[in-house]
């Protein structure tokens, strides 16, 4: 007679359909960073709505008109002083890329390298999980993080218009501004993954990816502040996708310009995949 234990031993394990275990694990690992980014977007967005009546008394045009300040914010001009303008200056200037792009860059940079460093990637790759699938699930998780950040940003703008009097948005340009942010964040995620694909230390890779964003910001700032260093501005991704400027000027920056960070991000991601497929996994 077969005992229950013996029956279990001889039973073949049935197939199990799981929904993207690497993706959910990566989201879990990055949730604090993404949540912090979302929190600060909500805080800044609501704060702008709260102080909007007081801000209308400030001459923001002359403030931005100063080339140094304009360079720091990545804004060229302010046609009119509306709630959308203040929100664009405070939240969607080049600081958005620096702060929230930096957070996403860190998450992307650490995503694979941290698992290599702590050895947990071994448990995944010793299962029937290909390197390509692991990489693509990581990429997808970071894109989910990106969507969360942008979704919270859109909801914050909507909440502002509901809560605060005089806070109105031109939704067409607000959405197109967010499309520019998509371009920037796709760049950030792709570059972060490329760094992570070849690295074996989570903090180092995350720091390096963040450094790319910081260097991009500085290049654009110095490039626009000084004519002698004008060539530098082409190195900053915000130059190609000036989300805040699109919102205030209500003018599309150009499809080719929009596509440059997207293409660079996708190429970096694909190169990262090739690197990851061929590397040795050694902690």
């Amino acid at each position, binding site marked *: 007679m077969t005992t229950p234990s013996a029956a279990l031993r001889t039973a073949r394990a049935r197939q199990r359909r799981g929904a993207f275990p690497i993706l959910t694990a990566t989201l879990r690992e990055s949730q604090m960073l993404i949540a912090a980014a979302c929190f600060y977007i909500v805080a800044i967005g609501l704060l702008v709505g709260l102080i909007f009546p007081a801000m209308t008394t400030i001459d923001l045009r002359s403030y931005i008109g100063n080339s140094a300040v304009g360079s720091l914010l990545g804004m060229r001009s302010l046609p009119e002083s509306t709630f959308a303008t203040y929100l664009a200056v405070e939240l969607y200037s080049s600081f958005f890329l620096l702060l929230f792009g930096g957070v996403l860059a860190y998450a992307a940079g650490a995503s694979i390298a941290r698992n290599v460093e702590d*050895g947990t990637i071994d448990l995944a*790759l010793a299962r029937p999980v*290909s390197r390509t699938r692991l990489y693509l699930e990581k990429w997808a998780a970071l894109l989910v993080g990106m969507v969360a950040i942008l979704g919270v940003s859109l909801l914050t703008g909507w909440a502002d218009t509901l809560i605060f009097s005089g806070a109105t948005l031109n939704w067409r340009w607000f959405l197109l501004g967010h499309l520019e942010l998509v371009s920037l964040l796709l760049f950030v995620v792709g570059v972060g993954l490329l760094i992570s694909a070849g690295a074996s230390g989570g903090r180092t890779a995350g720091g390096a990816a963040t450094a790319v964003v910081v260097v991009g910001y500085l290049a654009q700032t110095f490039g626009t502040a000084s004519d002698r260093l004008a060539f530098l501005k082409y190195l900053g991704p915000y130059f190609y996708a000036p989300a805040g400027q699109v919102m205030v000027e209500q003018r599309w920056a150009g499809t080719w310009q929009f596509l440059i960070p997207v293409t660079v991000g996708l190429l970096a991601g694909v190169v990262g995949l090739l690197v990851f497929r061929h590397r040795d996994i050694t902690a």
Partner: protein
Amino acid sequence: MLRYLGSMSRSPLVIDVSRLVKTYSGRNPVRAVRAVTFQVPRGEIFGFLGPNGAGKTTTIRCMLDLIRPTAGRIALFGLDARRDSLVIHRRLGYLPGDVRLPGDLTGKQFLDRCSRMAGLEPVLLPILLERFEVPLERKLRGFSKGMRQMIAIIQAFMCNPELLILDEPTSGLDPLGQRTFNEFVLDEAQQGRTIFMSSHILSDVEKTCQRVGVIRGGELVAVETIERLRERAGQVVIVEFADDVTSDQLQSIGSVQSVERSRSGAYHLKVAGSIDPVIKALARHTVRRLEVEEAPLEEVFLQFYTGGVSGTDERPEDAQPVASSEAAEVRGP
């Protein structure tokens, strides 16, 4: 798929490693594994022994396609370890040497994640939880080293794999845990499971393995059965005489390797090979006490480790260092 099924059914060998070489490139290239060749048939428990940094983990990582070999061929279930890795990994369980677990998960969540990654139901989980008691509702960061090791053992076995690759499986387990593990491994081998376990703890492999491979400095220096190793280790004869017998007289007996005399006056004779001439020689004297013990295997392994002995079976012939400076260093980068 037909190709897979055909090659799987034909191959009696579950593991077939042939002339495996792994060189870590860099400013100072390191050849961590040199022309390693061995085979493991279905249902065998094979021990892979060697001192720290000998190349055990590098070999295992090559078998799992975590590291890409510089040269040589690895086949598991008759399939190429790299090209067919997904098919192979569906049929194996792996226990890493240095168990690191995601601390923010509970034991239950961790096992569920492992099962989802495997794409298989954890059919053996009830049996494993009977043997290895781990608090599944607790976060893994609160687990002791022994508990981490036990939950890692559980994840390796739970989807009923045909092949287990275990890197130092008893590391961190207390003596009770080690005994439970050894009993479990023996039970599982009786079910036809093939188990490949690396260790530098001899007693582990001595209790469970049928054959062992010994790796030193990246080279496989021996692949032998435990029985053959015991023969090689020889026996120790402890004898006390009522009459006067000198050490030189005992040393002159054929097959006596060494003679030591204890404070009590008893002689300890290390015997290699047949014990028959020793017994016949001792019978010429008046013997007060006689004991025969198996010599500890540790000595044989120490000889392997330090280069005093080389194996007889499956010795690679062409293992050459990359450069003389590499000879001492065989660890990964």
